[in-house]
């Protein structure tokens, strides 16, 4: 469903993403881990069509995001880390607008809006201006917008930023359910616990390079082989990203 082939992004002299290759299957939840500045957000932005790759290809549902951006974007639901929205629109107006951009039918939009506002506990807030929403509410609204058109792929950058424990639990449940329905989820996160609980496979990015990839147990085996000791995802992450363990 998602395929990255030698994907590279340079900003002048800096190589933010360095020849990444990976394949994410349909219905899989793939977690992208890495320290700050590793290239996670840059990869996500290239997948979502916000940045153009310097070289290599990114395919979503078989569509190259550069050659066929419209087809690729039509199947993607993007949830960025910072919910910049049109503050002078109401929640409902914003969702209706997004639905129209994705070419959805009026009735379809209306049905999805009431369902999603209810799901993300925003009912009662739909007719209020977004400027009066809290950060968490804006984040939940962005998630509603991303799910509005029933995307085949959900791309999420730091999904739990600004959410309270109840909302985090809700989002985890929704992601798992969507995955069971065959939706592919590509998420980047710093929160190792979330990655451990949600993701079928993980990729660890450091300095723009994909340095490890596999299921949690596969990655643990790698750690065992390399260091001769067992550990947690945290110790694996710190070992691979070159940070010394304090304990």
């Amino acid at each position, binding site marked *: 469903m998602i395929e990255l082939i030698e994907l590279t992004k340079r900003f002048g002299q800096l190589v933010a993403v360095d020849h990444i290759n990976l394949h994410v299957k349909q219905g899989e939840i793939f977690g992208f881990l890495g320290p700050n500045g590793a290239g996670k957000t840059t990869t996500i*932005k290239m997948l*979502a*069509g*916000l*940045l*153009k790759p310097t070289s290599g290809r990114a395919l979503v549902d078989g569509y190259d995001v550069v050659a066929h*951006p*419209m*087809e690729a*974007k*039509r199947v*993607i639901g*993007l949830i*960025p880390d*910072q919910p*910049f*929205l*049109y503050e*002078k*629109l*109401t929640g409902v*107006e914003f969702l*209706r*607008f*997004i639905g*129209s*951009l*994705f*070419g959805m039918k009026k009735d379809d939009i209306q049905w999805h809006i009431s369902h999603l506002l209810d799901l993300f506990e925003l009912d009662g807030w739909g*007719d*209020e*201006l977004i*400027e*009066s929403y809290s950060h968490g509410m804006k984040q939940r609204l962005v998630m509603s917008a991303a799910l509005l058109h029933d995307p085949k792929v959900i791309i999420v950058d730091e999904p739990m930023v600004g959410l309270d424990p109840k909302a985090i639990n809700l989002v985890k449940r929704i992601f798992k359910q969507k995955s069971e329905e065959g939706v592919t989820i590509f998420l980047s996160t710093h929160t190792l616990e979330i990655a451990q609980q949600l993701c079928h496979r993980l990729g660890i990015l450091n300095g723009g390079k994909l340095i490890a990839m596999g299921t949690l147990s596969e990655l643990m085996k790698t750690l065992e082989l390399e260091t001769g000791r067992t550990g947690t995802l945290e110790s694996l992450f710190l070992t691979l990203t070159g940070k010394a363990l304090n304990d």
Partner: protein
Amino acid sequence: MTEVFLLLWPKAKSIGNRFKHRRASDLIRPIVMITLAFLFWVVIFAVFYNVLVYFKSIEILGEILLVKLLAVVFLTFFLMLTVSNIITSLSTYFLSEDNKLILSVPVSTEKVYLSKYLITLAHSSWMVLLFGIPVFIAYGTVYGAPITYYLWVAVILLFFLVPPAGIGVMISISLVNIVPAKRAKGALVVLFVLLLAALYLFFRFLQPEKMVNPERFSELVDYLAMLRLPTSPFLPSHWATQSLFPLLKGRFDESMFYFLLLFSTGLMSVLAGSWICRLLYYRGWSRSFESREVKIKRAPLLEGLFNFLLRPFHGSTKAMVIKDVRIFLRDTRQWSQLILLFALVVVYLFNFKALPLNKVSGISFYLENLISFLNVGLAGFVLSSVAVRFIYPAISLEGKSFWIMMSSPIELRRLIWSKFWTSLVPLLLLAEILIILSNTFLHVTQFMMVISTVTIFLITIAIVSMGIGIGAVYPRFRVEDVAQIHSGFGGLIYMILCITFIGLVILLEAWPTYVIFMARTGERSLTFLQLIEVIFCFCLTVLIILTAIFLPIKIGLKRLSRIEI
């Protein structure tokens, strides 16, 4: 005091870094800006110098007029500064991004107050300095003032800026304790714009052109001499006038009393502000977080109208147009500008109604038609000024939400054209109202009416297209204030291109229009050569207009498609 400077350090450093990391190619922008500012100064100086020389030559009343004029200048500055300081201090004290950081560190309220005060003062006052300095230099030149005058002007001006800032800060801190900051700012902006529009209309309806008539001019002189308003002894503007005027003649001692009044009031206003800040700032700051719960009611009639008007368009274009209209109507900073626009239109039309053409016997028919033709150029200039404020920023106004467009399955072409259509309809309406009504007031011939309405129709399309296209070439998605968008380099380039384009169209149309007009009024037909010339000029005009319509959109689209966020 160290802490105050420390709080100001990030701002100063940011400005410094901006210059430090500038490449050689980035120098064009400041050079153009400085040249324009200098030209602006020269124009203001020239106008004031001539007026002052004229006033000075009037016997007995001359001196009184010069003092009154200075008092009017200071009073206007004082009022503008006070309102500007209220609005600016609402931002610096309550809405600024760095407030959360500053208020979380162990720095006393007084220090925060003082650092914010200095930022407010700097933000609100630079405009007055820009307008004021050439005026005071003109006074000095006319009086042949000694060099000490210019040094004292700097000191007096500096202390003149202090009381309005103190008053502004005190009002805004008190106001936020009653109304949350965002709402207060919105209401004040509308009030400020209303005030400006009212002043503009008031001065225009005084019909100053009648003062050209010697009899009426003497009335103005009497009126100004009798005017008491700017001389209220309790206003800092009066003290500034009274301390500055004697300096023109080197009478330093006469100036001191009023200067000390200005100085002590300035200090007092800073202290009083500090006291009010200690008392009310935190309460107001907490209130500024209160969000306004505004339930927006659906307007089915309006929605129905839009759906009907936008029927020929694609669903996503329709959605983008409706979104833009909604945001415009709900943003006080944007729609309040319409008040000024309304005043501008009224004055524009009034100018044509008030033209004394019927007094010019014999040639009034030609004059009316000539003015009608030139009116197309003037209207084009007015439309460009409106467009630089409302249309040029259209792409930049997507702001940080631009990721929504970039990640949606809509082509950027559709986004650009949706902005084009949203802008075109109201500007066309305005253009045709200006031209048809002014032509009606001028009683022009049917031929001139057709020529000017068709020309302005095409010019308007090009103005909109250039606004959207150049706006896409110079997008500014991260500005905090909408006004920063059009006041930047791109806005300047847009205005220069618009004026050049309008000038070119007018020049190209002038000859064929004249030839046809003369032939029709003389009831004769065009010669073959004239016909060829007319066709050539009109074809060239159409070619230029078509280029101005399609080229900017094409360039803007190309630039926008390269944008990465």
